[in-house]
């Protein structure tokens, strides 16, 4: 009768994905191919064999990708072009048919999130769903969400157990999940030297992965441990790759970039709930439009006892905790 879906942690054969847009690869390619290719590009005489043509195309794609603009300065046409290049690259390199969206924020929408700490049972379906939805590195076990098993009365996840693996819920414990809070006054944005991370008009704090230089200042600046760093090429079994992607969301991040929860921008901008909300079997996660007085999230803010984490820091998160 209960509607809970079992999630199997398929071990599978990890195929390491070629990084779509690696500057290193590009540079390597550059030194080898420079002489031959630039000559043929300049004169317009393309290589004759199909293989050579393909690698020529890959080279041209990498070249153009390398010198593209910051996402926020792109026109829609330029966005469409970079997406087309990224999709083509994925096709050439791994035979994947991706759909990378650049869906803009919707007007009169400001996303907000609420988490019921009395209701959560610690099943971690949210974490499992997030890994799949957002193409997270299976080998490094990157996770955007962390669930803590907490002693009654405590509200600082630092005091909780974030590594539990036993039958849940344990009597007299409660569970509390932490992820990026999409602060209105986000310290990570201020810390970024390349303006590679910013807050969109619908409130989602995003990263331009191609503009990020991996300095990790943002990670140090975040008081909530919301950000993750790609130490290695992400490895995901090919058949598990989520092909529905967003430029600012779950597209596969190259090595050496910062990433984090984007409220599943690829879903939410299409009207869907984030994957964690959809997966939660207990209904502990409430998501919606803060600017809509009729939304569930507004009901929670109005009728429940809510609090935000480390509110005194003035970060103004759009993520509330509440109790029944």
């Amino acid at each position, binding site marked *: 009768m*209960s509607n809970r879906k079992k999630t199997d942690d398929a071990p599978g054969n990890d195929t390491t994905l070629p990084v779509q847009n690696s500057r290193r690869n590009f540079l390597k390619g550059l030194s080898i191919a420079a002489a031959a290719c630039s000559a043929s590009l300049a004169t317009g005489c393309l290589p004759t064999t199909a293989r050579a043509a393909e690698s020529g195309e890959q080279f041209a794609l990498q070249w153009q990708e390398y010198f593209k603009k910051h996402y926020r300065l792109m026109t829609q046409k330029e966005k469409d072009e970079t997406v087309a290049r990224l999709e083509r690259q994925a096709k050439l390199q791994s035979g994947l048919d991706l759909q990378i969206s650049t869906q803009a924020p919707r007007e009169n929408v400001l996303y907000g999130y609420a988490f019921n700490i009395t209701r959560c049972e610690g*099943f971690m379906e949210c974490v499992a769903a997030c890994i799949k939805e957002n193409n997270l590195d299976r080998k490094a076990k990157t996770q955007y969400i962390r669930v803590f098993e907490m002693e009654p009365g405590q509200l600082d996840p630092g005091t909780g157990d974030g590594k539990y693996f036993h039958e849940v819920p344990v009597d007299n414990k409660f569970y509390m999940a932490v992820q990026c809070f999409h602060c209105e006054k986000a310290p990570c944005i201020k810390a970024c030297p390349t303006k590679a991370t910013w807050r969109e008009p619908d409130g989602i704090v995003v990263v331009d992965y191609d503009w990020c230089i991996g300095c990790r200042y943002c990670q140090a600046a975040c008081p909530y441990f919301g950000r993750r760093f790609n130490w290695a090429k992400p490895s995901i079994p090919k058949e598990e790759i989520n092909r529905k992607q967003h430029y600012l969301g779950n597209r596969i991040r190259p090595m050496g970039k910062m990433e984090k929860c984007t409220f599943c921008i690829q879903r939410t901008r299409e*009207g*869907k709930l984030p994957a964690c909300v959809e997966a939660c079997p207990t209904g502990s996660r409430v998501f919606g439009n*803060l600017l809509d007085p009729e939304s569930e999230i507004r009901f*929670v*803010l109005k009728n429940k006892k809510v609090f935000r984490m480390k509110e005194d820091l003035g970060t103004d998160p759009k993520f509330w905790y509440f109790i029944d």
Partner: protein
Amino acid sequence: MKKTICLPPLTMPEKMVRTLLFFFIIGWSLLHPHVSAASEGSVLDRIGIATAPYDNSAVDSVQPITEETVAAKERNQGGTFKILARKKNIERYPCSSCHNGKPVAARDGEALTHGSVSIDHGREGSSLSCIDCHHRDDKDFLEDKKGQKIDFDHSYLLCGQCHFRQKRDWLGGAHGKRVTYWAGARVVYNCTTCHNPHAPRFAKRFPATYSPPSE
């Protein structure tokens, strides 16, 4: 928490390009106009002045959900809404195939009766009994306290009689959950999509995954 960063050794051209890139980026970030977000002011300020309902049909990518739904018989702050239907999920429905007025002969024991139904609902020592919820004469329906019939798709009307707070929160959106979309017409889980009415507490189980130690 701490980890040393091990960068692979750089070749000469790479170093040059990186250095160039660094200055390029710094220069760029100093020069290019500040693209600021739409608003200033705190979230609560913005929420405070947002009083006009959002037009949920504005999100054109919302598709009808695949599960069967029915219109709820109650309204919430947003007006009417839908719930996941239940009758299709009840294997033995219609119950009147056996409960049809004639005495039901319990010949085949468990298979024929409801051996699988065991009640763990209510206060210790005073579990609920079948007819607290099921209609006394017409088993195709549930029954409210006044003896009125309640359709199986609308069991929230039954539960809400004893669980007033949860029902109110469910209507408003603080208990239970929406199906797939935050936008579009509101569709929510029924009480019995999540709770087994005969033993409503969630069973303990192992988590779906685990977290490795953090960085």
